């Protein structure tokens, strides 16, 4: 099937994007990500720990940029300035790679995006040549704004980051998808495979998740489940589901019954 996901002019086979945080160790990280089949993986930018073993494995050693598309994020940023600084550092770290995930958070309890700050940061970063995949609310009007501003993908939340609550507002996600001319990916809030499948059935172009895999009892097995859920949901969307009806409709013909 030639059903590729295109983001910023580059094609991907997998519609599952995964984060690399919260795993037990590097080995589990690598196995889960490999199993997920994801081609785009997120990373965070943090201070180098001066006391650490200089030979300790770095995330980019086990998940190399020549194999994966690395999507640096701005997790932990609550204002325009820190988000812009973070992504400039990330671009330098990744040898000029422009694709990134912008999130500017508004509140520590909900980790909901501060959309006003996100808009300002997006505007500045787009002008500076970044390809922005933007984390935002499930708000169709904001999604339209980000698209018009030049963001390469819009990523509404399903539910708060790390909550595993699943898609809280299916109708808004549907509206965002219907209006969009750039890829729409559900980012954050997915809890299990059916949530991921549901996002794809709603017509999303992909799903970005981290905790749903990393915090599962068996992360590597959940990575496999998510890969299948994304594929199943996508195929169901493309196949076009039957209309739901209130009452029954027999599957076997009524004609030709040999009793009356």
């Amino acid at each position, binding site marked *: 099937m030639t059903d590729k996901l295109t983001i910023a002019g580059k094609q991907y086979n997998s519609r599952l994007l995964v984060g690399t945080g*919260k795993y037990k160790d590097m080995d589990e990280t690598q196995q889960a990500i490999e199993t997920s089949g994801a081609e785009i993986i997120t990373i*965070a930018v943090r*201070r*180098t720990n001066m006391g650490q073993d200089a030979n300790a494995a770095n995330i980019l050693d086990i998940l190399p940029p020549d194999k994966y598309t690395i999507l640096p994020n701005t997790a932990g940023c609550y204002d325009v300035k820190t988000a812009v600084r973070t992504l400039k550092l990330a671009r330098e770290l990744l040898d000029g790679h422009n694709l990134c995930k912008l999130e500017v958070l508004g509140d520590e309890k909900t980790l909901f995006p501060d959309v006003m700050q996100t808009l300002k940061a997006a505007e500045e970063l787009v002008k500076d040549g970044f390809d922005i995949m933007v984390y935002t609310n499930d708000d169709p009007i904001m999604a339209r704004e980000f698209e018009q501003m030049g963001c390469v993908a819009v990523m509404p939340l399903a539910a708060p980051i790390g909550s595993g609550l699943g898609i809280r507002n299916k109708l808004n996600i549907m509206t965002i998808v219907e209006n969009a001319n750039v890829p729409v990916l559900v980012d954050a809030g997915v809890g299990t495979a059916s949530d991921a499948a549901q996002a794809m059935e709603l017509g999303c172009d992909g799903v970005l998740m*981290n905790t749903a895999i990393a915090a599962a009892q068996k992360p590597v097995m959940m990575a496999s489940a998510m890969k299948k859920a994304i594929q199943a949901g996508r195929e169901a969307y493309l196949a076009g589901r039957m209309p739901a009806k209130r009452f029954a409709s027999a599957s076997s013909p009524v004609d030709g019954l040999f009793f009356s």
Partner: protein
Amino acid sequence: MNIQLNGQPKEVADNITITALLESMELYGRRIAVEVNEELVTRSQFGSHQLKENDVIEIVQAIGGG
């Protein structure tokens, strides 16, 4: 002279270059990025950029995150 390095005070040689600082920390050539006083310094400038008293340096790397 004194600088702030990743949030900690550090004493370094006067006018030390970023290359020399990174070498002294066994970080030179590794996949890191450097900011001086909240401005990015690109790798090509490491050899020529001399630090000044009270400069605030951040050395960052990629880590796992979602």
